[in-house]
C-alpha cells in the first residue's frame, strides 16, 4: 500500500505530516481535504477546496492510480467554482448550486461506504483463521433408484401393449441353473471350500436357494464336488473334487437345455 505525505497544503497545525493511504479516488481525496479543513460537508467552501485539490493533483500526478477520474473531478470543481461567481439569478449559478448539493450527497454516501469498508476489513481480520469446507463431503452412499420396480413393470406393460410384438409366454424374472453352476465352478476352481449358508446369503430368496440346491446336486452328480455336513441342521460344506475340477470339464456348459426356474 502506497503512503503519501500530507502535500503541504494549508491545514490545521494538528497534523503537519499526516500519513495516509493513497487516495482510492477523487471522492476520497475530496473528503480528506474537507475533513482536514474542518469544513462542513453540507456547506463546502468550493473555492478553497478547489485550489487545494488542484494543488494536490499537480504535486502527486505520478502517485495517482486513475488520473482521468481525478481530472474529471477537478473540472467539475472548477465549473462549480466559476459558476458560483456569477450572479445568483443566473441559470448557471442555480445549476452550480444543484451540482454542489449533488456532490455533498455523493460525499455523504462515500463516507458511509468508507465506514462500512473499515467494518468489513476488521471483521475479515478477525476471521481470517477460521475455515470451513465449501463443498459437500465426498461420501459414498449406496445408490437407490428413483424408479420403483412397479414403474418398471408398468413401462414393460406399455411396451407390450403397443402391440407390435407377439411374445411367447413371458414368465417373469428367472434364475438359470447354468448360471449358478457356472458361478459355483468359478469359485471352487481356486480350491476354495464353500459354505452353503454363505452362498444362500448372497441372494436369500427361496427361488435362488432352491436352484442352488439343484445346482449343488448336479455338480455332485457329475462328481465335480463333494458335500459334507457334520450333523443335521449344521452348515453344508461344498468341496471341489480336485482332479475333476482341474480338468477341462469345468469350462464346458455343464448342463445344457432350456431348463430354468422362474416365478411366472
Amino acid at each position, binding site marked *: 500500500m502506497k503512503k503519501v505525505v500530507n502535500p503541504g497544503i494549508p491545514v490545521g497545525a494538528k497534523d503537519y505530516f499526516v500519513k495516509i493511504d493513497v487516495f482510492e479516488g477523487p471522492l476520497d481525496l475530496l473528503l480528506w481535504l474537507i475533513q482536514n479543513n474542518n469544513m462542513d460537508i453540507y456547506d463546502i467552501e468550493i473555492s478553497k477546496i478547489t485550489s487545494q485539490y488542484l494543488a494536490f493533483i499537480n504535486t502527486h500526478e505520478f502517485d495517482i492510480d486513475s488520473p482521468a477520474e481525478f481530472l474529471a473531478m477537478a473540472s467539475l470543481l472548477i465549473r462549480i467554482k466559476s459558476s458560483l461567481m456569477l450572479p445568483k439569478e443566473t441559470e448557471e449559478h442555480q445549476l452550480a448550486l444543484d451540482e454542489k448539493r449533488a456532490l455533498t450527497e455523493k460525499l455523504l454516501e462515500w463516507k458511509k461506504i468508507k465506514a462500512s469498508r473499515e467494518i468489513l476489513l476488521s471483521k475479515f481480520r478477525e476471521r481470517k483463521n477460521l*475455515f*470451513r*469446507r465449501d*463443498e*459437500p*463431503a*465426498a*461420501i459414498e*452412499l*449406496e*445408490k*437407490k*433408484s*428413483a*424408479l*420403483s*420396480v*412397479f*414403474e*418398471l*413393470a*408398468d*413401462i*414393460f*406393460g*406399455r*411396451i*407390450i*401393449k403397443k402391440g*407390435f*410384438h407377439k*411374445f411367447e409366454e*413371458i414368465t*417373469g*424374472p*428367472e*434364475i*438359470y441353473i*447354468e*448360471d449358478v453352476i457356472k458361478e459355483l465352478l468359478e469359485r471352487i476352481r481356486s480350491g476354495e471350500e464353500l459354505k452353503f449358508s454363505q452362498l444362500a446369503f*448372497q*441372494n*436369500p*430368496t*427361496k*427361488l*435362488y436357494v432352491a436352484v442352488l440346491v439343484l445346482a449343488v446336486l448336479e455338480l455332485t452328480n457329475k462328481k465335480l464336488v463333494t458335500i459334507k455336513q457334520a450333523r443335521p441342521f449344521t452348515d453344508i460344506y461344498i468341496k471341489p473334487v480336485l482332479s475333476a475340477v482341474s480338468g477341462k470339464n469345468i469350462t464346458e456348459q455343464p448342463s445344457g437345455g432350456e431348463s430354468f426356474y422362474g*416365478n*411366472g
Partner: protein
Amino acid sequence: METAELKKTIEALLFISGKAISKDRIATVTDSRPVAVEDAINELKLEWNSGRHGVFIEEIGGGWQISTRPECADYIIKLYPWKGVLRLSPSAAEVLSIILYKQPVTKAQINEIRGVDSQASVATLLKNSLIKYSGRKKAPGNPRLIRISENFYHIFGIRDISDIPSWKDLAEDSRSAEEPEIDETAAEETAQEDE
C-alpha cells in the same frame, strides 16, 4: 505437539477435508511422528465412534476420514438428493424393463422390441451395474446375452424375486385406470445420473 493439541488439529483436518487423509500426510502437516498420529486417532475414535454421534472416524485405504453413520443416510439423501439416487432416462428405464422381464436377451432383441437402437441405454445400465453380460446365445454370431445383475436388487430395494411384480397384473390394472402412473417428469429431467 502434545496429544491434546494433536487431537484437536486432526479433528480440524479431517472435518475440513471431508475425504480420507493418510497417516503420513497428517504426520507431515502436524510435524508429528506417525506413531503419535495413530495414538491420537485411536483416542479420537474412542470419543467419536461411540454411536452417540452422527459421524465417526473410519480407516479407508490406509488413511482416515470422517464418515456419516449409516442410520443418517436417509436424511443426507434428503439434503442432497443427487448424492444417493440413481435416475434413469426414460429410454434406459424402458431397456431395463425389457431386460428384467425378457432376460436373457441380446441387444438385437432389445432393439427389435423398442424399434430403436438401444446401445447408449445398455451402456448406461452396464456402467451402473444394473445389468450384466452373461453367456452367449447359440445363434449366428453368438451374440452376448444380457441379464439383470445382483446390484439391481440393491438399487431397487428388492429383497426377494417375488417382490418383482408381474407386469401382466399391472397391465390389467392400468387398463382400468385412466393413465399408467409413471413419473415422467422425474425421468425426463435426468438423462444421466449424478455422481
